[in-house]
């Protein structure tokens, strides 16, 4: 931890140049500290680990907020200032937001799981509210007026009756003041917020459209070299020998060879590539599985041997079913493909290391670096410039560690940007999975039993929104052949694909309309509301299928937000599926920024369309066979359907995150529409290749 954070609150404030400071703690007990109740720590000096965010006004009235969250395209660089601005009565654009810098911002677990809006925004909002109250108190005292006669606007304290007016800086400089609070102080109700709830363009949009924003991959440090790393020919290959003499003979090139790590640092990218090519290495490879055996592998290899598996075959009690169904669904490995691949710039000063890198988990990467180089965390600083997207794919620090290794050996700063091929091969994937569903339904369309088993892909989104008297949903971890990890929406996409496909199968088994069947069985009213909204806008009632045109729907909930998706698809004579129109209704509590929320929902639909229709990692024997955009297509302009987003604004409810959940509806909606048109039920993602080959 850098000195800044280990200082006492007073010293810390001094280091910020005085003014007013509010620290927001993670724990509820912190309020107890303030109110003097006994607590294990003195209230005057909360250890920084407990602090989630802080907010500062300097003597000139400049407002700065500090958070460990990072911006990866989900728009929190704009939405967090909106929350602060509501409370503090300043322009959102005037707030400086310091994000994801382990030396300057409080510890944070990471930017994932759609947690920023429901947790960080209220924390900063509370800090701003406390700041506002204190400003009023100081101003009333200084002017010797009644506090209630004062108002705040655009960074000024005003007394409308007298016309008196002064900037916040005047009061911030009056008394150095710090406060610790937890996030439930008095905040402005949603209906009275000035900025949240309104559309606002990205605060840094000018930087982005003018090319001025510096992504990690754009950075340059004095004397910086360009790195490359030698990769094994296949996963798990062991380095037997390497001849680096030719590379080392190239002027100004540093070759690093430490156990099985080989890399180079060179004055430019061209020489770095040439040096890497000059290295001759021998590897011992091991034989590994092929993509075609993936699903049988997952089923055959439970993580902990055979334990607990017997209960998946025992039937659930179901005495009312008129019909029983049993289906198996499968989901392939897919890649995140953030357009900016992993990148890091590493710089050593003696035994202190600074790394700029695009990661969702700056403090986790700091720990990884500290461990890799046997440093204390105080001696490692990780800084995350706003990043060219992540989608759950940038949780880990491998690129940062590699850059730091090269920089250490070269004695100069080193930038390492993974090639697209490296990003496709050496990062991690969204887990593949097999999902088995058994169910029962009564003749009147009442769901009577539900038995749902996910192998490997994960547990999120297992919870069903449907009423069912006899119900079980389980996740079964298995061994897996490729490195796998987080992804936008995690397993909830797979689980919704299986559940919502199966629900359609049940509806058709009893001859019911899929919409009516869902409405009959849904027990969650928020899901019901989005489903009705989507179906209404889509014109579900009037949608009549033909053999080449079908209409499908899906709905669900995850991470505190709710979606329903309707898709119109058509099939060409050569069995190409086209998605022509999508209507998605989405509800995530009180809306913070409608246009940017719509942007997120649309983006999720488009990204989801790739995984639904055609994205799949192909692999064989430890090699990725399609590690290039030319071989692994992602959605392009030509794939774009007409998209309509219906946002339901619940001003009465707290705001939930929205970066992930809207991705979940598109795949089952397409599969259901495809069945309606063609009578072919595709139970695997991606749908297109399975449909084409008639599986």
């Amino acid at each position, binding site marked *: 931890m850098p000195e800044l954070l280990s200082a006492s609150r007073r010293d810390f404030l001094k280091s910020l140049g005085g003014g007013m400071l509010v620290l927001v703690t993670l724990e509820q007990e912190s309020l107890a500290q303030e109110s003097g109740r006994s607590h294990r720590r003195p209230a005057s000096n909360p250890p920084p680990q407990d602090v989630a965010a802080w907010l500062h006004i300097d003597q000139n009235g400049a407002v700065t907020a500090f958070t460990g969250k990072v911006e*990866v*395209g*989900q*728009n929190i660089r704009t939405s967090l200032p909106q929350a602060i601005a509501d409370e503090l009565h300043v322009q959102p654009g005037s707030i400086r937001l310091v994000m994801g810098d382990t030396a300057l911002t409080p510890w944070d677990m990471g930017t994932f799981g759609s947690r920023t809006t429901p947790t960080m925004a209220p924390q900063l909002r509370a800090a701003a509210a406390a700041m506002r109250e204190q400003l009023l108190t100081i101003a009333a005292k200084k002017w010797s007026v009644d506090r209630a006669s004062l108002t705040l606007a655009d960074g000024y304290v005003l007394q409308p009756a007298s016309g008196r007016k002064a900037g916040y800086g005047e009061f911030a400089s009056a008394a150095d003041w710090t406060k610790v609070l937890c996030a439930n102080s008095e905040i402005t109700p949603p209906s009275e917020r000035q900025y949240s709830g309104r559309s606002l*363009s*990205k605060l840094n*949009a*000018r*930087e*982005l*459209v*003018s*090319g*001025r*924003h*510096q*992504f990690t*991959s*754009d950075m*340059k440090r004095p004397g910086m070299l*360009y790195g490359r790393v030698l990769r094994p020919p296949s996963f798990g290959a062991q380095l037997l020998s390497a001849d680096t003499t030719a590379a080392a003979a190239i002027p100004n090139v540093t070759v690093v060879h430490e156990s099985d790590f080989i890399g180079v640092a060179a004055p*430019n*990218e*061209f020489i770095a590539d040439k040096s890497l090519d000059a290295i001759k290495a021998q590897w011992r490879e091991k034989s590994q599985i092929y993509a075609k055996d993936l699903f049988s592998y997952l089923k055959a290899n439970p993580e902990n041997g055979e334990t607990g598996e017997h209960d998946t075959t025992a039937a659930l009690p179901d005495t009312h079913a008129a019909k029983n169904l049993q289906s198996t669904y499968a989901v392939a490995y897919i890649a995140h*493909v*953030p*357009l*900016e*691949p992993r990148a890091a710039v590493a710089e050593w000063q003696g035994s202190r290391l600074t790394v700029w890198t695009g990661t969702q988990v700056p403090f986790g990467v700091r720990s990884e670096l500290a461990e890799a180089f046997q440093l204390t965390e105080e001696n490692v600083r990780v800084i995350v410039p*706003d*990043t*060219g*997207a992540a*989608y759950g794919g940038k949780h880990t620090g491998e690129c940062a560690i590699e850059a730091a290794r090269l920089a250490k050996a070269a004695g100069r700063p080193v930038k390492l*940007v993974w*090639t*697209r091929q490296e990003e496709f091969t050496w990062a991690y994937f969204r887990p593949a999975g097999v999902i088995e569903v058994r169910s029962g339904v009564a003749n009147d369309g009442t769901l009577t039993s539900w038995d749902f088993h996910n192998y490997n892909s994960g547990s999120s989104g297992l919870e069903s929104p449907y009423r069912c008297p006899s119900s079980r949903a389980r996740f079964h971890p298995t061994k897996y052949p490729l490195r796998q990890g987080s992804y936008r929406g995690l397993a909830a996409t797979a689980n919704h694909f299986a559940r919502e496909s199966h629900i359609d199968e049940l509806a058709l088994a009893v001859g019911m309309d899929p919409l009516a069947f869902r409405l009959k069985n849904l027990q969650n009213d928020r899901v019901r509301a989005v489903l009705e909204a989507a179906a209404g806008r889509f014109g579900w009632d009037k949608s009549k299928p033909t053999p080449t045109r079908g209409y499908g729907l899906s709905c669900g909930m995850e991470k505190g937000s709710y979606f329903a998706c309707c898709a119109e698809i058509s099939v060409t004579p050569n069995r190409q599926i086209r998605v022509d129109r999508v209507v998605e209704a989405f509800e995530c509590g009180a809306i913070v920024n409608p*246009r*940017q929320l719509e*942007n*997120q929902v*649309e*983006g*999720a*639909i*488009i*990204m989801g369309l790739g995984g639904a229709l055609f994205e799949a990692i192909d692999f064989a024997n430890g090699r990725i066979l399609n590690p*290039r*955009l*030319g071989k692994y297509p*992602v*959605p*392009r*302009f*030509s794939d*774009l359907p007409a*998209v309509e987003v219906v946002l339901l604004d619940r001003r009465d409810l707290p705001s939930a995150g929205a970066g992930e959940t809207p991705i979940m509806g598109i795949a089952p909606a397409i599969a259901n529409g495809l069945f309606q048109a063609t009578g072919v039920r595709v139970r695997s993602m991606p749908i297109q290749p399975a449909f084409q080959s008639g599986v």
Partner: protein
Amino acid sequence: MDFVVNGERRSVDTDPERLLLFVLRNELDLTGAKYGCGEGQCGACTVLIDSKPVRSCQLSIGAVAGKEITTIEGLSDGDRLHPVQQAFIDSDAMQCGYCTSGMILSSVALLRTNPAASDADIKKVLQGNICRCGTYRRIIAAVRTQAKKGGGHPHA
């Protein structure tokens, strides 16, 4: 190697086999053009050469000697944004913004040759540019506002 970048004569002493993308980024500090794939598939590296959009990851620096190159940095007029840049802001046509320079330059080139481009024209020309964040509909909307106005002003 001599060429004109954003209206200025520049000279770089380097291997003629080096790719234009990296010479712009690493030698001239013009990092607006991005690396996204290195295989001509994503359009993040788009720059204009003699007003035509090219993939700078596919061109050696030797092949562009004497040419006139425009990067995103050269599109605005000092602090005044090009109308297409402004349209991208007004239409919120970005999320992470990594594809944005390539999208804007491709759109500027389109509007120059086809000032009243239809949605179909826009989609066709931008087909080679990937936005992984999925902001395609908004990008079309942004370019459409300029097509309606006859292509924005021509200074770049």
